């Protein structure tokens, strides 16, 4: 009896077996497939953002009015500038990463070390900038009134320029103090009380003839609707329920709370990716210094973390567009 030899007639062809049809190592291929799944996660978030925005298309906050700050330049309205800087930092660190990969192909340890180092620095600057962006957003700048229906009423002067609560409202002596854990019921506490009460805002509005209310509704010129003086007073008196300063997951002085929720969630998830990317880069950086890849005679690990790092940059390109530009 002779052994059966199976001939499929596909030997030597791409998918005939016994070779690597994709010409990529297992690790690199799996990094690509992980990136596909992570890209789907992020597009899920961004599509959900688009969904909510389309749902409230007539009253969504205008990003140019929300992100106007640049560090060290107080009181100036400079939309886009800082976030453009952040984008450039991230693209730049992508460039140093790909240069590290390129140096790895040439087995140049010194260059890989330096480029990895620069990549890590770029990542840290980006995460730091994002933290600053968050802090500014949480702190808020003008303050607003939330109505019973959950809408946000902001204040402008007769020329349409924004007016901060501090410019026309005087804080009086309060009888209401913040409820802390140490007083009363130990398991109950509340958040920080706003600087002003609704009644103080009403008084301030009555005594300042040139202050008007601006609603969330976007008019035909693509700007927020400004109410007449009489209508302004009526809205605040009848519907004003709470003073909002800054933004958190429940209230948002810039408009719809959903905007703040998505901002925190999407940029937070992205920032977490950048953070973990920096950690992985640091690990690889030390491996490079220790000569691990020199001994292995291949810098492919640098290439794999490089893929992840570029992906983080890729996601930011989309976050930048959908949060700040569109």
């Amino acid at each position, binding site marked *: 009896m002779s052994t059966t030899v199976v001939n499929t007639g596909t030997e030597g062809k791409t998918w005939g077996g016994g070779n690597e*049809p994709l010409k990529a190592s297992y690790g690199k291929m799996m990094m690509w497939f992980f990136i596909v799944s992570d890209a789907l996660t992020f597009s899920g978030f961004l599509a959900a953002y688009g969904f909510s925005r*389309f*749902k409230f298309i007539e009253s969504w906050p205008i990003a140019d009015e929300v992100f106007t700050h640049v560090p060290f330049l107080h009181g100036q309205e400079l*939309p886009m500038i800082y976030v453009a800087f952040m984008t450039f930092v991230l*693209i730049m660190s992508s460039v140093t990463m790909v240069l590290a990969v390129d140096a790895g192909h040439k087995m140049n340890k010194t260059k890989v070390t330096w480029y990895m180092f620069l990549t890590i620095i770029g990542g840290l600057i980006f995460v730091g900038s994002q933290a600053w962006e968050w802090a500014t957003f949480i702190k808020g700048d003008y303050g607003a009134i939330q109505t019973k229906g959950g*809408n946000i009423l902001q204040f402008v002067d007769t020329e349409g320029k924004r007016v901060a609560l501090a410019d026309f409202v005087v804080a009086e002596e309060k009888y209401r103090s913040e409820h802390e854990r140490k007083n009363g019921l130990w398991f109950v506490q509340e958040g920080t009380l706003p600087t002003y009460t609704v009644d103080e805002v009403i008084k301030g509005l009555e005594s300042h003839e040139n202050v008007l209310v601006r*609603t969330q509704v976007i008019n035909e010129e693509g700007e927020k609707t400004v109410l007449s003086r009489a209508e302004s007073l009526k*809205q605040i008196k009848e519907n004003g329920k709470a003073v909002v300063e800054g933004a958190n997951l429940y209230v948002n002085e810039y408009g719809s709370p959903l905007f703040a929720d998505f901002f925190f969630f999407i940029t937070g998830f992205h920032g977490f990716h950048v953070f973990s990317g920096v950690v992985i880069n640091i690990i690889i950086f030390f491996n490079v210094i220790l000569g691990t890849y020199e001994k292995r005679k291949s810098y492919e690990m640098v290439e794999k973390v490089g893929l992840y790092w570029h992906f983080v940059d890729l996601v930011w*390109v*989309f976050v930048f567009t959908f949060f700040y530009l569109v």
Partner: protein
Amino acid sequence: MGHEHKLEILRGLVKFKSNTQKIWGVLILLSIVTAVEVALGIYKPEALMTQVLSMKLLNWIFIILTIVKAYYITWDFMHMRDETKALRRMVVWTAVFLICYLVFILLQEGGYIEGVYSTGFVKRDF
């Protein structure tokens, strides 16, 4: 494993001498695109505010420029240009198809709900 790189971008319009040179070239391209986006975002030219396919022309430009940037990051920084056709299609076609599907469904639904709200089923308090 060989590390040969394809050094042409823009369909052969620009050909670089080395991989390092290509990286810097792509950086310049990405910076220009970002600068254009930022300039358009700050000045918002009135001519681009017309509605095209139920969205402002300016927003379409932003989205197209973003996809251009994504292409060069994936193709040149992530070396997709040098991978085999099969790997490239597994990654790119899968992602592009699923993302387009998801975005279409969600935006369609969002627009529908907005219609329900604005035709009076939900009353605003002002």
